[in-house]
């Protein structure tokens, strides 16, 4: 009598399919939960190591996740119950023609409104905590986004570096964000939420590391072709190590200061470890390639004539853990790969393929690796 | 002719909203004008976002914009609004020829306004205010330029109405075409009221 009898489906098969789908969804959710808990992902927001990230995590888990789980199961449960309970059969009489129930309406308007008010209040509290600027002693770090790398300036410490930010553990950091070109977003999920780096503006956020460690960061505002590889590292280290790092960063690297570099650079450069002198001459040649080639048009190395600010500062590049905005770990092999053709590693990035000869590349690698 | 819809003589007791009696074209024009409000609102808002920079920049708007000249332009638009309602009034009273000439007068006044604006733009260009000369030039020229574009389209519309009026296309039973052109024209006028105050007069 209702609908089209030819197309009526057998009741049980549809029901069982619903059940299968339901179980599959639940299993999937459970597996996802497990997956989320067991891995230790370098960009995870669920593993806070700093107060800002902690506050957000607490807000998320306590005040949003668990209520959401309850609401999810309650409402989806209601829906599924209605779907299973009220399945019609052929020949069923017309159900009661109900139009509504004002008391119910008021209830399901007010109850969600109340829940949301509570969450909103807690949100405001967390917001206030996060917005409090650091008091007492803190370090200011100016972060400048570039396509597609990060520049870090420590105005009070006289340090400028790239792609690897160092901070002392337990000390509040005031991050001042800006950009040299397009909008980027600075994000170290273990320590704090993200904040946009907007050209022409300065945005401020504070973060702090409670544990020493090397944390991953990434640009999280779409900024062009190599947005995916605009990564960075944040090294949180004890005060003593940090001070040592600052001292080293402020120094002029040994080679350019005229001090003979040790034999190690040559060895790490993967050049046949013939003699210290051989690698030394390789380093010298690298310095010449750098100074006479295209490198100086973009990069700066303090203590030399190279003072351009287009690309990352390279004064202590040999001491960094990664190169190319944390795209490659900093090994001589990787650096060779990078210098041979940067476009093959990060297609579309702003460092052109300089078509360097293999000897030049080896020399440059030896030189850059010596800049500790 | 436009779509004729029902609603006339219907038992209104069953359609108590009264919307059935409205003219479709007028309703559509008003919906469009509501949209235009936001259009100019967004333009003016953009101007005001840059206003601190504009006032700090060089040249300063009040140094290059002649208030008296612009007041004259505002008067011209005001008069054109008057001639527009008079045109409609004449048409509604079946004074067709008068209606046509009032329409023509409105179009002429609109053209005068455009001429004045062209003069103002050239004068500004001579003083170095162009689209690419800086934040003031671009904000001012785009805002007033889009208003001018609206005036320009309005003038064309009015001329079309004039042509139709001369052919006897409007009369006391058929004047909606002129009325919606008038609505558009008055809207362009009130936008100028806002621009005149917000951009030219407010210090």
């Amino acid at each position: 009598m209702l609908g089209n009898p030819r197309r009526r489906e057998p009741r049980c098969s549809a029901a069982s399919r619903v059940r299968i789908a339901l179980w599959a969804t639940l299993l999937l959710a459970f597996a996802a939960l497990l997956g989320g808990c067991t891995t230790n992902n370098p960009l995870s927001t669920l593993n806070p190591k700093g107060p800002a990230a902690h506050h957000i995590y607490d807000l998320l888990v306590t005040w949003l996740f668990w209520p959401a789980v309850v609401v999810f199961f309650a409402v989806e449960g209601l829906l599924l119950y209605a779907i299973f309970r009220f399945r019609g059969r052929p020949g069923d009489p017309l159900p009661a023609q109900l139009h509504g129930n004002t008391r119910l309406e008021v209830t399901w308007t007010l109850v969600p409104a109340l829940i949301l008010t509570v969450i909103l209040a807690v949100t405001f509290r967390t917001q206030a905590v996060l917005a409090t600027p650091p008091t007492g002693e803190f370090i200011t770090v100016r972060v400048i986004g570039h396509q597609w790398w990060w520049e870090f300036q420590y105005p009070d410490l006289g340090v400028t570096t790239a792609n690897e930010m160092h901070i002392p553990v337990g000390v509040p950091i005031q991050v001042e964000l800006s950009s040299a070109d397009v909008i980027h977003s600075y994000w170290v999920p273990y320590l704090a939420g993200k904040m946009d780096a907007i050209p022409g503006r300065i945005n401020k956020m504070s973060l702090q590391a409670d544990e020493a460690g090397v944390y991953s960061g990434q640009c999280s505002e779409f900024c062009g072709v190599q947005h995916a590889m605009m990564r960075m590292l944040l090294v949180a280290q004890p005060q003593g190590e940090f001070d040592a790092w600052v001292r080293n960063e402020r120094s002029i690297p040994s080679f350019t200061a005229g001090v003979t570099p040790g034999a190690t650079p040559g060895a790490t450069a993967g050049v046949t470890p013939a003699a210290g002198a051989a690698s030394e001459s390789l380093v010298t040649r690298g310095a010449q390639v750098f100074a006479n080639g295209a490198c100086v048009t973009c990069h700066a190395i303090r203590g030399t004539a190279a003072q351009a600010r287009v690309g990352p500062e390279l004064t202590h590049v040999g001491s960094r853990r990664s190169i190319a905005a944390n795209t490659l770990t900093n090994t001589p092999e990787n650096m060779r790969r990078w210098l041979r053709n940067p476009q093959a590693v990060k297609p579309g990035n702003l460092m052109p393929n300089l078509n360097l000869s293999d000897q030049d590349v080896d020399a440059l690698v030896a030189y850059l690796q010596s800049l500790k | 002719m436009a779509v004729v819809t029902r609603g006339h003589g219907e038992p209104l007791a069953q359609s108590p909203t009264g919307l059935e009696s409205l003219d479709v074209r007028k309703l559509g024009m008003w919906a469009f004008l509501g949209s235009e409000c936001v259009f100019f609102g967004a333009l003016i808002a953009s101007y005001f976002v840059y206003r601190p920079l504009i006032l700090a920049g060089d040249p300063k708007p009040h140094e290059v914009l002649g208030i008296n000249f612009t007041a004259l332009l505002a008067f011209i638009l005001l008069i054109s609004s008057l001639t527009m309602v008079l045109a409609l009034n004449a048409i509604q009273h079946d004074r067709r020829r008068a209606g046509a000439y009032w329409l023509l007068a409105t179009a002429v006044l609109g053209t005068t306004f455009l001429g004045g604006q062209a003069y103002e733009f050239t004068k500004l260009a001579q003083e170095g205010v162009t689209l690419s000369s800086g934040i003031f030039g671009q904000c001012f020229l785009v805002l007033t330029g889009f208003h001018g574009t609206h005036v320009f389209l309005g003038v064309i519309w009015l001329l079309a109405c004039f042509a139709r009026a001369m052919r006897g296309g409007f009369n006391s039973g058929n004047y909606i075409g002129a009325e919606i052109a008038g609505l558009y024209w008055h809207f362009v006028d009130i936008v100028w009221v806002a621009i005149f105050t917000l951009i030219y007069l407010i210090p």
Partner: protein
Amino acid sequence: MAAQVAVPVPQQEASPLELRREWYGWQWLATVDHKKIGIMYIAASLAFFLIGGFEALLVRTQLISPLNTFLHPDLYNQVFTMHATTMIFLGVMPMSVGVGNYVVPLMIGAADMAYPRLNAFSFWLFFFGGIFLNLSFVMGGAPNTGWFAYAPLTERPFNPGTGPDFWLLGLQLLGIASIAGAVNFIVTILKMRAPGMTFMRLPLFTWVTLITSFLIIFAFPSITIALILLMFDRLAGTSFFLPSGGGDPLLWQHLFWFFGHPEVYIMILPAMGIVSEVLPVFSRKPIFGYSFIAYSSVAIGFLGFTVWAHHMFVTGLGEIANGAFATGSFLIGVPTGVKIFNWIGTLWGGSLRFRTPLLFACGFIANFIIGGISGITLASPPVDFQQTDTYYVVAHIHYVLFGGSIFGLFAGLYYWWPKMFGRFLNEGLGKAHFWLQMVGFNLTFFPMHWLGTEGMPRRIYTYFPNQGFELWNLVATLGSYLLGISILIFVVNAFLSARRPAEVVPDNPWEAATLEWSTTSPPPAHNFDAVPVVYSRYPLWEDRDPEGAHGATAPRTNVDAVSHPADDVAATGEGEQGAHQGGAAHAFHLPNPTIFPVILAFGLVLIAFALLFAPPVLKITFLVSGLVYGVVSVYGWVRQVSD
């Protein structure tokens, strides 16, 4: 109202116009019939939807494994930008408009839209605009800046190609089409309702179409301005959004999201309306809490304008502004929740018939609950600091726009298909489509919640191994293939239904309550043989519930048509004078088919090309020809109107 057979188009003496009209394509190219335009809207948006879906599969294939080199990064950026742009502006929105175009005039008992020619113009401008946007792929590269096109990445210095120009000009065309269409809907719904159809008797789909149209006319001007300013930046040397010239990139974001957030409701509200139509029909009881659903839609429409900056929490607006916009965003959750509860209330106590439309409607609710909940987490600024621009947001928007809008629109397609084409879609294939889509959808997008919380940023063309992203990206990609297959099943289903011999579909196969089911399937050109008079919210159900029907002045049976001699209808039809129907008090004059809307739309596209091309010869050629087309068509159009 028992006409089972469409009124045949009467043959008149063969004029040249008549001969031309015999060409099949002409019937579509020059049509001003809202039903044909609606079908063209649906067909075109489905085609664009398939293109956008293909782009989505390319994106998912690139992300199937870490450091994959399937797509060049720049091509990847083009593809994901065009995926979003296509789905939003060429897929979901026009599909809602198409369904609305077909159904709304029928629902309110009208013969056509208020401005049939403008309706045709809206469609053709949308259609050409969509083609224009997609031409960018073969004309120097598609836009590659994301559908939000944040300045200054879209500015000349950072993007010298023509991609952003295609994007901004194409969107400008689509915006004009949308505003024209929305004005049309507003006037149609306010003005052309059948006698007796008060606002509180308006079908809910018509309600949301009205609200959506208001959102369009008030939200689109904002992006129009943003696009104009960007166009001046790119083509005329200004620097509205270029910091080096004093511009502020944040202005772009404000203007964009002032449009962009209402746009989300423009996409979801029609689907909500469809679900509100489908649920009562297949539950065999009236919608629960009609007025609450209607008012909550109005509330969502209003609140939609107060929350735009929640897309900008991390731009450093400050905690006060963030808090204010968070409050609005939380607030909007309340009317949304009210809707969900009312839908469940409609199912509750019903006698559910699980035909494909109801399956999709239930799928909509189930998915939308998840999308709503994840929306609440994103509305909280501190949580947003972590989750924005990650895959968590990707999951959220797809739960709303795919799990919501697309499921709802498919419910509508299966529901109204027999009305539109006089044929059913195959029920078995429909169910297979639903289940595959449901499973594929959740397999694709549910893992993205985890990817997001585990820190996978959006819009990255690749990711590294050992970041914990491999497994769920693989699952998501496999899920997306399932989704692709499910959509193919729909395409096959539609194709098969067209191939099958015509069946006689009764006027009201689903036993629905609204006016479109009182006329034949498919309806005649003039829709109704006589103007229906409406006495309640459920004109075709009044025998079910004589007392309970809201607002009924007196119990009547079904639609009370204002009676006219039947031969009056048969004598006119869609002739040279246009279909003329009813007595003197109810003159419907359907305008004749006309080609001018097509020409005007084409002229506008030519002008867009003129702005795009740098070489003066091309520029002037296109500008002049565009203007000629425009002037000629406007002149012809005006002549037609005033004749």
